[in-house]
C-alpha cells in the first residue's frame, strides 16, 4: 500500500466509527429499545469525537498558520486548497442542515393534531362516563353490603363477609377498622393473601362522612372499581368500620378503557416529548453537522497536505537544483499526473547530473590539455602567438616575450597592429603577418629582420590559419624563432671555412712565387741595364713584398680559422691588462692609454695567451681607429657585474675616435668588416672568437664620449665567485 493509502486509513476508520456512532445515536433518538439505553453514551462518544476532531482541526490551523508565518513552500497553496475544500463542503452541508431542520420542526409538528387530542380526551371522558355507571352500581351495592355487614354479629363477621362477597361477585371485600386495620377480608383470588389496602387519603374521605368510589388499576389485573363505605355498627362499640369492595370492571370494558387510556397516555407523552424530541433531533443533527464540517475541514487539511506535498517537495527540489544540487530525487507517490511530473523531474535531474558530470570531465580534460599545451608552449624556445580573425592578440607564450623583446601578454585582447605604435621596431614583423593574412594564405613562412634594442634580430616566422569552429575560426597561430644567433653561427662557420681554405690553398703557392722572384732577382738583376735594372728591381721587390703581405694575411686567416686549444686557468684580468698596457706604454705610443681597473682582482677562468691577444687586438683596433690624433684617448676599464655581482667581469675599451655607424653595429665582428682604411679586418672577428671560446659575450656600442666602445663580459672564476653565468639580459648593443 502506498503512502497515500496508509495515511488515509486512520481517517477512514475515524469516519466509519463516527458514522456508526451517529447512526446508532439517530436510532436511539427514535427511542428504539436497542440503543435507547446507550443514548447517553453514544452522545458522549460523539461529543468525544467532536472534541478530538476539533482539536485536530485547531492543530492543523495552528500548523498552517505557522507555515504561513515561516513562508514555507506550499503554505499558500495549502491554504487556498483548504479554503476551497471547506467552502465546497460547508456550503452544501449547511444548506442540507437548514432544510433538514425545517423539515424536522414541521414534520414533528404535523404528528400532532388538536382534533386528535380532543378526540382522545373525549374518548377518555367517554370511558370514564361508561365506567361511572358501573361505579355508581358498585357504590350502591357496596352500601347495601355495608348494611348487611353492620348487622352481622362479630363472631360470624368473616363468614358473612365471604358470603356477601360471593353473592355480590366482588373481587375482594375487606372490613377495616377506624385506624385502618383489617378486621375481616375475603378475596376471589386465593393468592392475594394481603388485601389491597386503601390509601390514607381514601380513608380520610370517609372520615369526613362520605363514601369513596373510584377506579383502581390493580397491578396487571386490569381495572377495578374500589368502593369504600362506612359501616354503621349497631353494636355497643361505637367504632366506625369501613367496608372496601373491589369489583372488577367487565373484561371488554376494561380492555377498551385500557386501550383508550394507553393511547391517550402515549399521545400525551408524545405531545409532551415534542419539544425535547425536537431539541434531541436538532442536537443530533447539529452534532452530525458539526462533526461533518469538522471532518470535512480535517479531511480538507489532509487532502490539501497530501496534494501539496509532492508540489512542495518539487518546489524544494527545484530550488536545490537551482542551487546546483542535482542529486535530489523525489519519491514517486502516485501514478497520476503528479506522479508523472515527479518521474519527469527525477529524469531531468538525473540527466542534468549526468550532463554536469560529463561537462566536468570534459572541462577537466580540456583543462588538462590546456595545462599540457601551456606547459609545452611555455617551455618552447619558439615564440607562439595566436590572433583572432580581426587580428586581436588572443594568446602568447613566455618565449614570445624573449624572442620579441616585448611583453606580448600585456597586449592580449588588443589588435596586434597597435603594438607597433609603442614598439616601432616590430613593424616589419606585424607587416609580414598582416600581409599573409590579407592574402588568405593558410600556411606561410617568412624571415623578418628587426632592429631592436638588442640590435639586429632575425626572426623565422611561420603562420597557420585556424580552421576550427566558433570565435577562433579564421584566426592565426604564429610561431617565430629568433634565428639571429643561428645565422651568425652559420656565417661564422662559413668564414672559418673560407679562412681555412684560403690558408691552405693560397699559402702553398706563395713560397714558390717568392722564391722564384728572389731567384729572378739574383740571376738577372746584375746583368740588366740601368733602365731594365730598375724595372726588374721594382717588379721583383713588389712581388716579394706582396707575397710577404699575402703570407701575413694568410697567416691571419689561418689564425682566425684555427681550432682553438684553450687551456683555462684562473687568472686576474686586471693583472693581465696591466701587463699588456706596460708593453704599449713602453713602445712610446703617442696615444694616452688610461686604465680604470678595479682595485679588487677580477678573477676569470681563461687562457692567458688568448686573453692577451684579445687585449692586443682591442687596443690595436682602438689605436688604429684614432689614426694618430693629437687628443687620442683610450680608456680600458674593468668592473664586477653590476646586476649580478661576482657572476661576471666586464671589460670595456673606449676610444674617442669616430665611433661606429649604425649599420655597422650588426656586422662589426664579421671578418673583413672595418671602417678603418688600414687593417686586416680580422681584429674584432678574432676578439669575438676568443670571447666565444671563453663563453663570454661581446657588444659594440657608442661610448658616452662619442667614440666606440667594445664591451666584453667574461664569466667570473668559480673559485672567487658563485656560478651564475653571464647574464645576457643586461647586454645590449646600440647607440645610447
Amino acid at each position: 500500500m502506498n503512502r497515500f493509502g496508509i495515511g488515509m486509513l486512520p481517517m477512514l476508520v475515524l469516519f466509519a466509527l463516527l458514522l456508526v456512532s451517529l447512526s446508532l445515536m439517530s436510532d436511539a433518538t427514535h427511542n428504539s429499545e436497542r440503543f435507547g439505553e446507550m443514548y447517553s453514551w453514544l452522545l458522549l462518544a460523539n461529543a468525544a469525537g467532536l472534541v478530538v476532531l476539533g482539536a485536530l482541526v485547531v492543530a492543523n490551523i495552528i500548523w498552517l498558520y505557522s507555515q504561513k508565518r515561516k513562508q514555507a513552500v506550499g503554505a499558500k497553496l495549502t491554504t487556498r486548497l483548504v479554503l476551497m475544500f471547506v467552502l465546497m463542503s460547508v456550503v452544501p452541508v449547511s444548506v442540507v442542515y437548514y432544510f433538514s431542520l425545517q423539515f424536522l420542526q414541521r414534520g414533528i409538528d404535523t404528528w400532532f393534531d388538536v382534533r386528535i387530542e380532543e378526540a382522545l380526551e373525549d374518548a377518555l371522558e367517554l370511558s370514564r362516563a361508561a365506567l361511572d355507571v358501573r361505579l355508581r352500581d358498585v357504590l350502591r351495592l357496596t352500601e347495601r353490603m355495608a348494611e348487611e355487614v353492620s348487622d352481622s354479629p362479630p363472631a360470624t363477621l368473616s363468614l358473612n363477609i365471604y358470603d356477601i362477597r360471593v353473592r355480590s361477585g366482588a373481587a375482594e371485600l375487606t372490613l377495616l377498622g377506624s385506624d385502618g386495620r383489617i378486621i375481616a377480608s375475603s378475596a376471589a383470588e386465593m393468592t392475594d393473601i394481603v388485601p389491597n389496602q386503601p390509601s390514607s387519603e381514601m380513608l380520610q374521605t370517609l372520615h369526613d362522612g362520605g363514601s369513596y368510589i373510584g377506579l383502581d388499576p390493580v397491578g396487571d389485573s386490569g381495572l377495578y372499581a374500589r368502593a369504600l363505605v362506612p359501616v354503621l355498627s349497631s353494636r355497643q362499640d361505637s367504632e366506625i368500620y369501613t367496608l372496601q369492595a373491589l369489583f372488577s370492571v367487565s373484561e371488554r370494558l376494561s380492555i377498551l378503557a385500557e386501550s383508550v387510556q394507553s393511547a391517550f397516555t402515549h399521545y400525551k407523552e408524545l405531545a409532551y416529548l415534542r419539544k425535547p424530541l425536537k431539541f434531541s433531533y436538532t442536537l443530533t443533527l447539529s452534532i452530525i453537522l458539526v462533526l461533518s464540517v469538522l471532518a470535512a475541514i480535517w479531511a480538507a487539511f489532509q487532502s490539501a497536505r497530501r496534494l501539496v506535498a509532492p508540489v512542495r517537495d518539487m518546489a524544494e527540489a527545484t530550488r536545490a537544483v537551482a542551487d546546483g544540487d542535482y542529486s535530489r530525487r523525489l519519491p514517486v507517490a502516485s501514478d497520476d499526473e503528479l506522479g508523472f511530473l515527479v518521474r519527469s523531474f527525477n529524469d531531468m535531474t538525473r540527466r542534468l547530473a549526468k550532463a554536469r558530470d560529463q561537462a566536468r570531465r570534459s572541462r577537466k580534460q580540456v583543462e588538462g590539455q590546456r595545462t599540457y599545451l601551456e606547459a609545452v608552449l611555455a617551455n618552447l624556445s619558439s615564440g607562439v602567438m595566436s590572433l583572432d580573425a580581426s587580428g586581436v592578440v588572443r594568446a602568447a607564450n613566455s618565449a614570445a616575450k624573449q624572442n620579441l623583446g616585448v611583453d606580448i601578454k600585456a597586449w592580449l585582447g588588443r589588435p596586434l597592429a597597435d603594438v607597433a605604435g609603442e614598439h616601432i621596431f616590430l613593424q616589419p614583423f606585424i607587416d609580414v603577418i598582416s600581409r599573409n593574412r590579407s592574402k588568405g594564405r593558410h600556411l606561410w613562412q617568412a624571415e623578418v629582420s628587426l632592429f631592436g634594442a638588442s640590435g639586429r634580430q632575425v626572426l623565422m616566422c611561420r603562420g597557420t590559419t585556424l580552421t576550427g569552429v566558433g570565435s577562433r575560426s579564421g584566426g592565426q597561430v604564429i610561431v617565430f624563432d629568433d634565428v639571429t644567433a643561428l645565422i651568425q653561427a652559420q656565417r661564422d662557420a662559413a668564414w672559418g671555412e673560407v679562412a681555412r681554405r684560403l690558408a691552405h690553398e693560397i699559402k702553398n703557392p706563395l713560397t714558390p712565387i717568392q722564391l722564384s722572384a728572389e731567384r729572378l732577382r739574383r740571376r738577372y738583376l746584375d746583368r740588366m741595364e740601368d733602365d731594365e735594372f730598375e724595372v726588374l728591381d721594382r717588379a721583383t721587390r713588389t712581388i716579394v713584398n706582396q707575397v710577404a703581405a699575402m703570407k701575413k694575411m694568410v697567416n691571419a686567416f689561418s689564425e682566425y680559422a684555427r681550432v682553438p686549444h684553450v687551456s683555462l686557468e684562473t687568472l686576474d684580468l686586471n693583472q693581465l691588462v696591466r701587463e699588456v698596457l706596460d708593453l704599449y706604454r713602453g713602445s712610446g705610443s703617442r696615444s694616452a692609454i688610461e686604465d680604470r681597473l678595479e682595485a679588487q682582482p677580477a678573477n676569470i677562468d681563461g687562457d692567458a695567451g688568448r686573453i692577451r691577444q684579445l687585449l692586443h687586438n682591442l687596443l690595436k683596433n682602438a689605436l688604429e681607429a684614432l689614426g694618430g690624433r693629437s687628443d687620442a684617448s683610450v680608456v680600458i676599464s674593468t668592473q664586477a657585474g653590476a646586476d649580478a655581482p661576482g657572476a661576471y667581469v666586464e671589460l670595456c675599451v673606449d676610444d674617442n675616435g669616430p665611433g661606429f655607424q649604425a649599420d655597422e653595429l650588426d656586422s662589426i665582428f664579421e671578418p673583413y668588416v672595418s671602417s678603418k682604411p688600414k687593417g686586416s679586418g680580422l681584429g674584432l672577428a678574432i676578439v669575438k672568437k676568443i670571447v666565444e671560446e671563453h663563453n663570454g659575450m661581446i657588444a659594440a656600442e657608442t661610448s658616452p664620449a662619442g667614440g666606440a666602445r667594445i664591451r666584453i663580459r667574461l664569466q667570473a672564476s668559480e673559485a672567487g665567485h658563485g656560478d651564475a653565468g653571464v647574464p645576457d639580459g643586461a647586454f645590449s648593443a646600440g647607440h645610447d
Partner: protein
Amino acid sequence: MNQAHGRRLPVAGRVLLLIVVGLSLVGPGQLPADGGHGAFTVARAEIRRGESDWRLDAVFSIRLSEGAQEALENGVPLVLDLQVQALEKQPWLWDAVVAEQKRSRQLQFHALSRTYLVRDLNTGFQRSFRYLEEALQYAGVLEDVSVLGYEAMKDDRQYAVRLRGGLDIESLPTPVRLLAYVSSAWDMDSNWHQWRLAR
C-alpha cells in the same frame, strides 16, 4: 462523601454533554424552560441491630421538580431510586463498598382513573394513590432494609452506612434524558447521608 450514581454518567460526561448542548444552541433548537427545583431529602432514618445484621428504616421526603411533575402528568413514568451502601473504611484508599441495596419505585399517572400508581420494581407490587404527595410519601419509605451482615464485618475495621435517593434519568425517554442530565431543574438527587456503624 459523595459518589456518582451507578447508572448515571460521570461528571466529565456531564460536562461534555453540557458542551454539546451549548454547541447545539447555535442552531435553531432551544431548551425547554426549567421548572422549579425538586429534592430528595432524608426526613428520618434509623439504623438498628437485627438478629444477624444491621437494618435500616428511612423515610425520604420527595418533592418533584416542576419539569419532572409535568413529565409525570403527561404520562412519562418516573423511576425513583433509593440507594443504601455499607462502606468499609480503608486507611489510605477510598472506602470500599461491601454491601449495597437499591429500591426502585416507578411513579406513573393513570389518566383514566386520575390516580398515581407506585410500583415497586424490586417486588412488582403496585399501589394507587389519588394524590401525588401520598404517592411520593409511599415511594419514599424504606422499611427494614438489611444493610450489612455481622459475619461480613471484620473486627479491626470501621464501617459506615450511607443513604441517598434520586431520580433515575436513564429510565426516562431518550429525548428527555439529555435535558435531565444538563438541567439543574431535574437534579433531584439527595447527597449521601452517612452514619458510622457502632460496634
